[in-house]
C-alpha cells in the first residue's frame, strides 16, 4: 500500500521557517505533483518525506506508521534525483541492483528483479554499459529502475525531467504516466514546470512560501483557483489581472466596474455587500475574444506574435498591474500600436477580494473534468 499523511509538517533552518505547517492526505495509487516557484519549499518537503531532511514539527505517516525518525530505507520510499545520482563506476546492472546488494539479497533474486525492472524500462540491452555511455533519457530510466527494484510504497521524484531537452521531456512524461499505471504505485513528483504538473498529476499541490496554496485536480486549479497566487501560477501565459470596483452582488453574480467605466457581471457565488470594494478581476489570455462579448477593453499591443494557430499580443492596459496578454484564435488582425477592442465574458472571469482570495465561480468541475464525468 502507499498511503501518505502529512500533519502540520514544519521545517525551520535556525530562525527561518521554510515549511510552515503542511497538511496533506495522499491515497494509494495517486500521482501527486508538488509545484511552485523556486524557493517555495517543494523540494524540501519532498526531502522531508524521503528522510533526507529532519522534520522540525508535525508528523509524516506512511501506511499508518509515523516515520518522522526513521531512516529513508525504513520508510518504504524510493527516490529519483534530479541529477540521476547514478554511480559512475558501476554498470547499469549494478546501479539498478545497488539497493538489493545493500539488502544482501541472493544473486538469483537480484538477477530476477533487475531483469524485470530493465524489461519495464527497456534497458535490457544496456545492462552492461556504464552510465557515462547512456543518453540523458536512459540515465533517467536507470535511476527509475533503481527505485523500482525496491518495490516501495511511495515513489518520490525530485524534478526528474528538468535535465532533459524538451522533446525527451515530453516523451519521458508519457512514459512516467504509463509507469504509474503499470506499477499501481503512489508517486509524489516535484516540478516547477506546470505543463508536467497539469499533464501527469491526479492532484496538484501548489506551494507558496512554505504553505499549501491549493490542492486540487489540474482542471480544478485551472477553473477554480482559490487565490491570486494559484490563479497567476497555473496557466500559460499567465492570467491577466485588472483592478476593478465592486458594484452589487446578486444571484447571477457580482457586478463590477472596469477602469473604463463599463460594467461587467462576473459569474461567481453571491457575496455580501461589495459596492465600493476594490476587487481584482482575473481573465485568462485565451478567454479574450475579438467578437461580441459582455464588455470590452481597448488594448494597444506593444508586441504581437503570430503563431498561426494563435495570435498573442502583449500590451499595457489601465488598471492592469503587469503586461496584459491576450491569446486570440487564428491570425487575428492585431497590429503593434493600433488599438483593438478586446472582449471578455463574465462567465470566463475570476474575481478576487482585497486579500487575494477568490470568490467561488459558478462553474461545476464535474461538467468540465472528464475524470469526473460519468459517461
Amino acid at each position, binding site marked *: 500500500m502507499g498511503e501518505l499523511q502529512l500533519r502540520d509538517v514544519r521545517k525551520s533552518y535556525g530562525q527561518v521557517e521554510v515549511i510552515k505547517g503542511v497538511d496533506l492526505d495522499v491515497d494509494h495509487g495517486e500521482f501527486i505533483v508538488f509545484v511552485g516557484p523556486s524557493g517555495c519549499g517543494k523540494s524540501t518537503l519532498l526531502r522531508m518525506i*524521503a*528522510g*533526507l531532511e529532519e522534520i522540525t514539527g508535525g508528523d509524516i505517516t506512511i501506511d499508518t506508521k509515523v516515520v518522522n525518525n526513521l*531512516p*529513508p*530505507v525504513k520508510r518504504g*520510499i*524510493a*527516490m529519483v*534525483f*534530479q*541529477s540521476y*545520482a547514478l*554511480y*559512475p*563506476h*558501476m554498470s547499469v546492472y549494478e546501479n539498478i541492483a*545497488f*539497493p538489493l546488494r*545493500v*539488502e544482501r539479497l541472493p544473486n538469483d533474486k537480484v538477477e530476477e528483479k533487475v531483469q524485470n525492472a530493465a524489461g519495464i524500462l527497456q534497458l535490457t540491452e544496456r545492462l552492461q554499459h556504464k552510465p557515462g555511455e547512456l543518453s540523458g533519457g536512459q540515465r533517467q530510466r536507470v535511476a527509475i529502475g*533503481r527505485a523500482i527494484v*525496491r518495490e516501495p510504497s511511495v515513489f518520490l521524484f525530485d524534478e526528474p525531467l528538468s535535465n532533459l531537452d524538451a522533446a525527451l521531456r515530453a516523451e519521458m512524461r508519457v512514459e512516467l504516466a504509463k509507469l504509474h499505471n503499470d506499477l499501481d504505485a503512489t508517486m509524489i513528483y516535484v516540478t516547477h514546470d506546470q505543463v508536467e504538473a497539469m499533464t501527469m498529476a491526479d492532484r496538484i499541490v501548489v506551494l507558496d512560501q512554505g504553505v499549501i496554496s491549493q490542492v486540487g485536480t489540474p482542471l480544478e486549479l485551472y477553473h477554480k483557483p482559490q487565490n491570486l497566487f494559484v490563479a497567476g501560477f497555473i496557466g500559460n501565459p499567465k492570467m491577466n489581472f485588472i483592478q476593478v470596483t465592486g458594484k452589487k452582488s446578486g444571484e447571477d453574480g457580482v457586478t463590477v466596474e472596469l477602469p473604463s467605466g463599463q460594467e461587467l457581471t462576473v459569474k461567481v457565488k453571491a457575496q455580501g455587500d461589495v459596492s465600493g470594494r476594490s476587487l481584482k478581476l482575473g481573465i485568462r489570455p485565451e478567454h479574450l475574444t475579438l467578437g461580441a462579448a459582455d464588455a470590452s477593453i481597448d488594448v494597444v499591443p506593444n508586441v504581437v506574435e503570430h503563431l498561426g494557430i494563435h495570435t498573442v499580443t502583449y500590451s499595457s492596459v489601465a488598471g492592469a498591474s503587469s503586461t496584459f496578454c491576450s491569446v486570440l484564435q487564428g491570425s487575428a488582425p492585431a497590429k503593434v500600436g493600433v488599438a483593438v477592442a478586446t472582449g471578455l465574458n463574465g462567465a470566463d472571469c475570476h474575481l478576487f477580494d482585497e486579500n487575494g482570495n477568490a470568490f467561488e465561480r459558478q462553474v461545476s468541475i464535474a461538467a468540465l473534468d472528464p475524470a469526473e464525468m460519468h459517461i
Partner: protein
Amino acid sequence: MLHKYRWYEYVLIYSGVAVFLTFVLAPFVEAFVVSLRPLSSLFSIPYRFITDEMSFDAYFTMWQNVPLLWMYMLNSFFIATVVTVLGLICIIPAAYAFSRFEFPARNTLLGLFIAVNMFSGAVLIIPLFKLMQQYGLLNTYFAMIAPGTAFVIPTGIWLLRSYLVRIPKELEEAAWVDGAGKIYTLVRVIIPVALPGIVVVTITAFITAYAQQFIYALTFNSVNELNPLPVGLFQFFGRQSVVWNELMAASLVGILPVLFVYVFLQRYIVAGLTAGAVKE
C-alpha cells in the same frame, strides 16, 4: 581559444622551456655521466663531458663495495610503502568526514592540520627522539615509519578533502535512501568515484615519505640493516675518498622506484588535478 604564435614567440617559449629543463635535469645528467666515469678521470680539468674508459662498471661494483645496498633500497621502498598505506588508512576516512559531516570545531581542526604542516619534521626531532627513547622504540622500523606517517596525513587530508567536496552530494543521498550505511557508501561509492584523487594523494604521500625518511633514519636508527637508502649511501664515503661514481650509480638506481610509481600513476595525477575544473 584560437591563438597563433609568431615565429619569434615560439623561439622565446622554447628557449624558456630549455632553460628550465636545463636547470631541472642538469644534476641528473651530471650524476649519470659521473656514474659512468672511472674515479681517476672524475676531476679532470678542463671539464670534459666525454672521458675515456666510460663504462657501466660502477653499477656492478657498487653491490660488492656496499653489500647491503639492496637491503637499503628495499628498506627505503618498504618504509615509504608502509607510510603511504598507513597514511591512506587515516587520510581517506578523515578527508571524507571533513568534506561531508558537520561537527564542532571542524574548521579549527582543519586549520590545525595545516599548521602542523608548517613545521618541518626536523623541528620535532629532539622531542621525538626523547619519546622514542622512553618507549624503547629507537632502532626499529616503527621509529622511522610513525613520524613519517604523521607528517603525510595533514597534506593528504587537505588534498583529498578538496577532491571529495566536488563529488555530488546526491550520490551519497541516493545510497542513503537505498539503505546503505556510511561505511558501505564510503567503500562502495565514494572511494571508487574518488579514485583519481586518492591516487594523487598516494603519489604525494609516497614521494614525501621517500624523501623525508633520511632525517628520521639518521636520528632514530643506528642499526645498519634497517637503514634506508639515503643513509646507506654514506657507506660510499670512505675515510680518504668518496666513491663518487658508485655513489651516483646507487642514487640513480634508488630513484627508480619513485620513477616507476610516478610513471604508472601519472595519468591519474593529471586527471585528478584537473577534475571538476571544467563542467563536463
